[in-house]
């Protein structure tokens, strides 16, 4: 199972990002656990400065915007 963390202090864009990832996972019928991370300490540990950011299985893959559908697919399908 893949764990995807959406990092952000809880703005609209972060919610949208999490929704998009969940939708993509359903579309590909993959077992993906989408977690929203709002704790500033956790976000600092990932060294992220612009949110929303996305980490897949503990590895940062994206930051600063709502990701494109194609990008999400490429993270979820190795």
């Amino acid at each position, binding site marked *: 199972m893949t764990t995807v963390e959406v990092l952000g202090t809880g703005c609209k864009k*972060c919610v949208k990002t999490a929704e998009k990832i969940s939708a993509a996972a359903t579309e590909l019928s993959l077992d993906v656990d989408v977690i929203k991370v709002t704790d*500033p300490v956790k976000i*600092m540990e990932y060294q*992220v*400065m*612009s*949110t929303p*950011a996305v980490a897949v299985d503990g590895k940062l893959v994206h930051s600063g915007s709502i990701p494109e559908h194609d990008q999400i697919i490429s993270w979820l399908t190795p």
Partner: protein
Amino acid sequence: MLSIFTHLATWLTYDLMGLSPTTRLGSAIHFFIEDTTKILFLLVAMIYVIALARASLNLERVRAYIQRKNRLLGYMFGSAFGAITPFCSCSSIPLFLGFTSAGIPLGITMAFLFTSPIINEVAVIMLWSLLGWKFTIAYIVVGMAVGIVGGMLLDAFRGERWLKDFAAKAYQNATRNNDPRTPLEDIPEAPKLTLRERHHFAKEELKEIVGRIWKWVFIGVGLGAALHGFVPDNWFAENLGSGQWWNVPAAVFAGLPLYSNATGVIPVMESLIIKGLPVGTTLAFCMSTVAASFPEFVMLKQVMTFRLLATIFAILLTNFMIVGWIINTISPWLFTGL
């Protein structure tokens, strides 16, 4: 070129709706149509062009750049980057921690965050089109001064003592090394973007910004139009006197509970000035509305103790008042004919 919007408003208000230019309602509606169409047109055009240019700017590079400046230049560049970096207030905390954990002094980080809501491309475009270039430059100078002086004072008080523990620890860890600067090889290169990629970025940016601010344009211009039509010219000058010293603190406190972004408040400023409120008093009111916002303080509470927040608040208020007094004193020489 921009007179086309005056003609459009004249045609719609006086010819099509049949209102008279001498009535209050006619004058207010004319003002509203002229300003909303003009501002929205300029915003769409300019946000797109500016976004094309800054598509490759990223915060990691900005941070590395600021780290390499000495203290004094640090405040200036912190404030300048706060003005030009595209930045959503919901990123305040990650940005704050990103700067702090890289050993950038609290005052320089705060110079960035103070200036950020005051100066941005939207504010500059609106000021330029509504109040002219002299006033726009005065606004930029004042906005940056509030950020730079605010940051310096914060460091003079050694504000970093009052950070929340985890943030203070991150700062100490970074400054314990002799050289906390990001090694050159770790700084990401400026991405080389094709025109197509820049266009894509600019289009998304345009949608995002206009989607967020269009209602503020209507609210701000609506309020401005109401003032314009229903408050007699020079009302403020006649009723408040022009520039008693206490006008400035009164304007700062009046602006505090109002929470707006620069987009909403600039059309109101235009009307206030036309109605005879002194320029410095108007600027103090505007800064207080835009830069000292309750939601921002609630956010900063995550990384700061109450004592630090109170210090920041006091520094900001003092700065707004000083700015107001200074501009009021020098404005007779600066803004003849405004």
